């Protein structure tokens, strides 16, 4: 165990808790995700999905527990970890007053991306936004902003993608296209992906494995092979008490 297991897995979480003041948002989460695996996290609002993603993204610090990403400890090597992950959420992290190009160029500088200009063009082509690259972000539609946001997350060629409600504003057709852009890594191997979503059907279609969270804990875990959509809905209702 230990060293060997963490070498082979992309993400390893052991006994993670996170508290905000007196409120415990994560109450002991443990989870191992293999390289190239795609894992979807379901759960109602307040289940702790976003908190978990933010801890993995090194935006939040764990209160206790161990979090290893590519065998690096988040407490001690957060800066190195950030080079391995790309984050897309329902908020775009883009500056409305700057053009899409300027936004991408800014983040490319922050990630020390070599040959910035070419790389920005590359990721813009990947999300199909080459033609609108010099428009101000505030003039773009919500879906286009989300595409630019995905391009931003891909700039530094991360091996792991963290997607928190990332399909916000995107139509189903675009989602499929962008999914393959995010899923396919630089060397053709699939990227490791963790995503959270409200949409059970779409999430189910995309994942290798699924988790259901509620009240800061992982309540259910299953591989997609052993479950169909009806089974998932049943499990979801059983775990969360929410009727769909």
């Amino acid at each position, binding site marked *: 165990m230990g060293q060997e297991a963490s070498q082979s897995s992309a993400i390893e979480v052991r006994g993670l808790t996170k508290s905000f003041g007196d409120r415990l948002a994560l109450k002991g989460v443990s989870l191992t995700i293999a390289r190239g695996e795609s894992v979807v996290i379901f759960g109602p609002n307040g289940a702790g999905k976003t908190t978990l993603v933010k801890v993995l993204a*090194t935006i939040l610090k764990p209160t206790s527990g161990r979090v290893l990403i590519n065998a690096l400890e988040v407490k001690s090597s957060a800066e190195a970890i*950030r080079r391995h992950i790309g984050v897309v959420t329902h*908020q775009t992290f883009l500056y409305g007053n*700057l053009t899409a190009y300027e936004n991408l160029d800014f*983040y490319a500088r922050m990630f020390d991306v070599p040959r910035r200009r070419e790389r920005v063009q590359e990721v813009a082509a990947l999300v199909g936004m080459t033609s609108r690259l010099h428009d101000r972000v505030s003039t773009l539609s919500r879906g286009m902003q989300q595409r630019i946001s995905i391009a931003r997350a891909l700039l530094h060629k991360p091996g792991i993608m963290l997607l928190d409600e990332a399909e916000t504003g995107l139509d189903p057709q675009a989602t499929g296209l962008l999914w393959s852009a995010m899923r396919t890594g630089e060397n053709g191997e699939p990227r490791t992906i963790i995503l959270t979503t409200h949409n059970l059907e779409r999430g189910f279609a995309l994942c290798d494995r699924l988790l259901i969270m509620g009240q800061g804990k992982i309540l259910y875990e299953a591989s997609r092979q052993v479950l169909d959509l009806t089974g998932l809905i049943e499990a979801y209702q059983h775990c969360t008490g929410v009727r769909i």
Partner: protein
Amino acid sequence: MSFWSKVIAITRKDALSELRTKEIISAVLVFALLVILIFNFAFGARPEAVDLVASGMLWVTFAFAGVLSLNRAFIVEKEDNCLDGLLICPMSREVIYVGKVLASLLFMLIVEAIALPVFALLFNLPVLTAQLIGITVLVTIGFVAVGTLFSALAVNTKAREMVLPILFLPIVIPLIVAAVKASELALAGKSWGELYPWLPIIISFDVIFLVVAYLIFAFIVEE
């Protein structure tokens, strides 16, 4: 060096955005000029009155203009949660602080560079001396050092715009006292040597608060 290139990238990004909208500089400038105008009516523009209150007027104007401009500094970072975007960049949190300090300093100095000559013109004062400009730059550094820290804090509170002045003004009172006294002497045509002991107070305030704010900044943006 990677630290400074990222600092400059943040400052450049803010400057670019400001260049396009001129949101902060134009609003703050108009505000500063209005304050000067109101002071004129409040105190009467008689030369003897102006001599008495000129330096105070100047620093009340700049302190309030500073609050206004610093308030905006982190509001743009919260709009599409860009602050989280900065937090996932591979760098220490302090880069954000220094980048924001430089951007706010730039905006404040531009506003002051326009307001000072207007002030000189309207009240017939010898404002454009090396001493007064030196004092203005030094005091503005102190304002921005403290203000950027509190601005990052204030955007996470309920009443964003109201919190900054409540935190910022009591802390910079020593700086304002020193600025008013030093400018008074400078307006009276005194040399650098006669600005003692105010100049050392201002400089040590700048240095100490830049260092402390730099060290403590991570606690504000991190949870």
